[in-house]
């Protein structure tokens, strides 16, 4: 064990019970959605690479709920949870995973490339660290357009060894761009332990580029939410970028093909005991915000939403071959 995980702490008061209920629902939705995509993958309904987000739900739900409507998001290829937490339609996400017409991009992107521009969700990026400079460009544009908008850039600990990580942090700080760099440190870059890939600590790297940098408990949805709110205020005030490292853990392999030879079952069990959903559930029950019937209702609603998503995706047609060349080049608009 390299990481201290703490259960949700005492300062749980800021979001109201309604908001906590939303967090709980979303986290359960992310969990169940990923279980279902794993199942659909084994049945061949979903193809290609599939990277499940199970275990990291507190990061997505905490961070995305801290954003405002006008903010934009770019993220990595383990992106289903982020899209769901941003409110992207679960049906259309599942249809995209199935490669169908009603998917977010008509089945052209698949699991690693989810886009919903109407929600400011500008994509999952499948090349490690490729989207970090894009986030700086989004932030720079917001500044130049004089709009109160920021870019949330979510990436994994695997990104920090890439040159683009350093280029992006430098440019973001140099040009005071409103960007929240949100690093989901799940301790493994595929199967290589994080500790074996970096000679220092991540926040130190960010601090070296002269921006606020914190490391937080990414298994605690409230801590993630509070810290991201702080970051939003920082960026919104024109103070440049903000860096968050959220310590988290994925329960599943890197992708569906991962035999997980690099870690012990025991380690996973340890983290499961600190499960973010369980923790929030207990927190709410202890404070009378939730009872068993309420929890069962959440489970039921989520199960239905996920089953509906599968039914929707399954009913959606395959894209016609006549669409093969569509949207290769953008046509002029009337702006």
């Amino acid at each position, binding site marked *: 064990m390299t990481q201290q995980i703490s259960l949700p702490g005492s300062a749980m008061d800021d979001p109201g019970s309604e908001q906590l209920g939303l967090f709980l629902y979303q986290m359960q939705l992310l969990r169940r959605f990923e279980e279902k995509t794993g199942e659909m993958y*084994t049945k*061949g309904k979903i193809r290609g690479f599939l990277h499940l987000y199970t275990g990291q739900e507190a990061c997505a739900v905490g961070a995305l709920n801290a954003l405002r409507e006008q903010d934009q998001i770019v993220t990595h290829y383990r992106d289903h949870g982020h899209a769901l937490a941003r409110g992207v339609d679960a049906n259309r996400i599942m249809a995209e995973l199935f490669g169908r017409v009603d998917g977010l991009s008509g089945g052209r992107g698949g699991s690693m490339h989810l886009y919903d521009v109407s929600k400011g969700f500008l994509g999952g990026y499948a090349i490690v660290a490729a989207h970090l400079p894009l986030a700086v460009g989004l932030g720079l544009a917001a500044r130049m357009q004089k709009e109160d908008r920021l870019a949330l850039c979510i990436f994994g600990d695997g990104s920090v060894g890439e040159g683009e990580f350093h280029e992006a942090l430098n440019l973001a700080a140099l040009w005071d761009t409103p960007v929240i760099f949100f690093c989901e440190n799940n301790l493994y870059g595929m199967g290589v332990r994080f500790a074996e890939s970096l000679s220092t600590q991540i926040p130190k790297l960010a601090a070296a580029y002269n921006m606020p940098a914190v490391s937080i408990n990414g298994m605690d949805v409230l801590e993630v939410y509070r810290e991201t709110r702080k970051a939003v205020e920082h960026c919104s005030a024109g103070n440049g970028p903000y860096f968050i490292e959220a310590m988290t853990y994925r329960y599943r392999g890197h992708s569906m093909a991962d035999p997980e030879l690099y870690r012990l079952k025991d380690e996973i069990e340890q983290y499961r005991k600190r499960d973010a959903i369980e923790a929030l559930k207990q927190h709410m029950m202890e404070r009378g915000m939730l009872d068993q019937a309420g929890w069962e209702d959440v489970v039921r609603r989520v199960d239905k939403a996920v089953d509906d998503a599968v039914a929707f995706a399954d009913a959606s047609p395959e894209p016609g071959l006549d669409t093969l060349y569509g949207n290769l080049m953008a046509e002029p608009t009337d702006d």
Partner: protein
Amino acid sequence: MATEVTMPQMGADMTEGTLVKWLKAVGDQVDRGEVIAEIETDKATVELEAFESGVLKKLVVQEGETVPVGQVIALLGAADEQVDAEPERQPPAETPARRGHGDASASARQNAATTTAQREQAPPAAPETEQMHVNITPGQAGGSPDGMPGDEGRVRVSPVARRIAMDAGLDLSRLKGTGPDGRILRKDVEAAISGKLPVTEPQPAARPAAEPARATVPATGAQPLSRMRQAIARRMSQSKQTAPHYYLTLDIDMTAAMAFRGQLNASASEEQRVSVNDLIVKACALALERHPKFNAEFSDAGLTMHEEINIDIGIALDEGLIAPAILGCKGKTLGQIARESKDLVARAKSGALRAEEYSAGTFTITNLGAYGVETLIGIINPPQAAILGVGSVMPRPAAREGQVVVRDLMKVALSADHRVTDGAEGARFIKEIQGLLENPVSLAL
């Protein structure tokens, strides 16, 4: 209802898996998410979790067995549920494995013909999954370049020259190329068609043995085809396959014509002597002037009436047949036709024909009279519109004014392209020829 547990797909490239170990036995309660078996893929061993809760009712696949992705490997059910006997061991027709990359090129090969056609036409609105592979083309196993240099007999022709020559019916073997390495170029072919280009040395066309090896590679025991044979084969097949022929035959009473010819030849030198065929050429030239649709060329674009009347005369050679043209028959006297046809035959046999004489014919007369043949029904020489087949002039009984008399009769057969003319037009044309030959004085005009 029992829940089927199937061999999972655990990676983009996985098509089958081996059941290494069952971690649950029949009768065990299984919870959703619980690991029930170990599966070995070609990359690693992975754990299989149950996606539903239930009691393990049956193990369909035993430890150590390798089965395709999607095949049922176990059944889960309620505690009191009776599970049906033998579940289907075959994977469903549309298994994930079948949709995998491994199969893509094979299915692309299978579907190549149809999918290519589909792609060229309107693509289907909702394609089947198999059709999603259309853009994966089967690998091209190292093909060898055809026509290696060093092939001494190979006539080098540029693609454009070959195309123009083919359209004009020009035999490229007679042309001399002026391009690099003697390549026949566009300008060479165009010069040949306009009659300006010198042909090569006196032709080996008459001697197939001298014909170098531009012949089709023989199958077992087959004689290689000479170039002339190939050309005849190609052109005659083309004619029969594209031009719907109709045929008209009649007897021409040549008694007067033979007498007329006798008179002409009585005082003529060898060079000036007129053959029966010359009379027929002259008669046809006159008839064609009056019936221009038999001196025409059909194409999809329409009918082209030729200004010139160039009559090909079939000449039998040892190794085949050649039909060079007497050019510009319109207005030529019988004497001119006689001289030119003798010259043409001589040059055909020595291989000294001009390119234009091969390609400019507008009508053909084929005559096997010298062989004692009674009837000859010809195949149209494309792109012409008709051919006249001529048999021997023979003394035969004929009815004249109620009496049977012996006359010199000649059977002719008109083969005509039905796309160009109809039978009645053909009848008028052939009757015109008949009338001219039966009143031969008109031929002398």
